[in-house]
């Protein structure tokens, strides 16, 4: 305790982590409850962020309350009242808040309602730009701070703050509704799936050095994806996304070494993969396939499933993976998908294949010049061809661009290995 007392920043970090555990789970739900109750997303969201900030400031000194979630809810409600008091137009809403517990007086929530689902559809509304959708979701649904979002996007806090402010202004001014659009799910769904997958990936390959995989963010994304599958049992893509996430999670124990460094797929100890979880994810995928409408998430899950079922990198069914990437390209022809197809193509067979893959990587250079994995892939291909110097140059470029410390460590060790 003495050490903590003399190091306030460490103390703060500890409180912050403790809050993370509570807040991450509660933030989205709380924003949702307040939004439904007040009909004011902006005030709801700000009030919840205020409550978090207050927790960070007070919990280290006063101790974590016995029921942190209830504390946060009470505090957020009070901060909402404070905010509404400052607004002329807040009076009516203020009367509602003062009237009693949050749930009463608001619209009756739909059955099965997790407030976060309505919130998710609000944040992923097509009237908002793609950047705004992801940013709002990370902040309002997942409870990330502006600083964390800024680091996830490799941009400044100012940019993120402006993006959030603009987006919330539009939500209010254009009256983007807080609801699950039951009548338009097929059109509205892809944006939600994209945001969830991005959220999952941010958790999967975090830019935080001390938490290489921020499980809470993955769990949040997985939970929301699971909720989507229950809400839309006839929609195959949420099932595909959930299967994809679970296939990643099933293998996550083998992804990091004891020191927190990334272990590449080819080097992973596959006995540490969760075979039961893999089987469960593949069952989900079969259920999705049974609905007869393939889509990008189902195909990506199928690719992950081929990897998950392979006893080793060498005996992986690479031609099958290349074929799945070809299928994926029909849905999603992006440079990153093309790059991943190249990796499979190179793995499918010998130096000849590496040569072909390297040639096919050239046209992607312009689009992917700022993407570290493009350079890391080239480095691997060059190394397979024995072109060590060029490989090293490509790895250095990858190192320059990699954001995550874990990824940087992996590339550094490879560079060191080349020299040795």
């Amino acid at each position, binding site marked *: 305790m003495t050490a903590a007392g003399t190091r306030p920043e460490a103390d703060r970090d500890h409180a912050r982590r403790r809050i993370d555990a509570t807040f991450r789970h509660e933030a989205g739900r709380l924003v949702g409850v307040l939004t439904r109750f007040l009909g004011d997303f902006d005030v709801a969201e700000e009030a919840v962020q205020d409550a978090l900030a207050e927790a960070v400031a007070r919990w280290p000194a006063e101790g974590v309350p016995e029921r942190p979630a209830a504390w946060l809810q009470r505090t957020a409600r009070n901060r909402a009242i404070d905010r509404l008091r400052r607004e002329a137009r807040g009076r009516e809403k203020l009367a509602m808040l003062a009237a009693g517990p949050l749930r009463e007086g608001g619209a009756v929530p739909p059955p099965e309602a997790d407030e976060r689902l309505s919130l998710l559809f609000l944040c992923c*509304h097509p*009237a908002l730009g793609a950047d705004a959708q992801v940013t709002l979701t990370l902040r309002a649904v997942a409870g990330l701070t502006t600083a964390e979002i800024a680091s996830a996007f490799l941009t400044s806090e100012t940019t993120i703050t402006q993006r959030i402010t603009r987006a919330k202004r539009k939500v209010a001014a*254009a*009256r*983007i*509704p807080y609801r699950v659009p039951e009548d338009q799910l097929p059109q509205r769904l892809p944006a939600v799936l994209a945001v969830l997958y991005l959220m999952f990936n941010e958790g999967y390959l975090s830019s935080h050095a001390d938490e290489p995989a921020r499980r809470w963010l993955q769990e949040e994304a997985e939970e929301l994806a699971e909720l989507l599958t229950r809400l839309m049992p006839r929609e195959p893509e949420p099932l595909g996304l959930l299967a994809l996430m679970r296939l990643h999670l099933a293998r996550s124990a083998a992804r990091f070494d004891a020191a927190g460094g990334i272990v590449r797929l080819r080097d992973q100890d596959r006995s540490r993969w969760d075979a039961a979880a893999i089987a469960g994810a593949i069952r989900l995928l079969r259920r999705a396939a049974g609905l007869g409408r393939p889509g990008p998430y189902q195909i990506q899950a199928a690719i992950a499933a081929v990897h998950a079922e392979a006893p080793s990198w060498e005996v992986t069914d690479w031609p099958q993976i290349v074929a799945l990437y070809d299928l994926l390209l029909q849905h999603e022809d992006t440079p990153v998908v093309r790059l991943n197809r190249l990796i499979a193509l190179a793995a499918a067979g010998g130096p000849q294949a590496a040569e072909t893959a390297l040639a096919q990587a050239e046209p992607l250079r312009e689009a992917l010049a700022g993407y570290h994995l493009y350079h890391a892939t080239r480095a691997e291909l060059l190394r397979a061809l024995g072109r060590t110097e060029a490989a090293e140059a490509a790895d250095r470029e990858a190192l320059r661009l990699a954001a995550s410390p874990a990824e940087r460590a992996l590339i550094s060790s490879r560079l060191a290995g080349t020299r040795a």
Partner: protein
Amino acid sequence: MKYVMLFVGTEETDHRSEAESAAITEKIGAWWGEHVAAGQIVGGEQLQGPETATTVRHDHGSVSIVDGPFIEAKEHIGGYGVIDVPNLDAALDLAKSWPWGGVVEIRPVQEQMA
């Protein structure tokens, strides 16, 4: 909540046959009537073509008058509707069902403080 829908003509809508245009105009009549009756459309007009537009531009005290719309573009405003619906999703539904096609811009009306 009030919104204005700006109906914008595009190359596609400008190059229709007369028969095609007439058929769609008839649909617009029915569409408009239906939504007025439902209380969703509370006002609006169709405008004559951009070749009939005159633009008055104020520039630091001086005023100029120019033939044509305020911005030269292939797309041009062909009319507007004032709607009163619960939220943006309802406004989007109306805009998506607009029979003429082209582009529809939706803007919330500035609410006046009481």
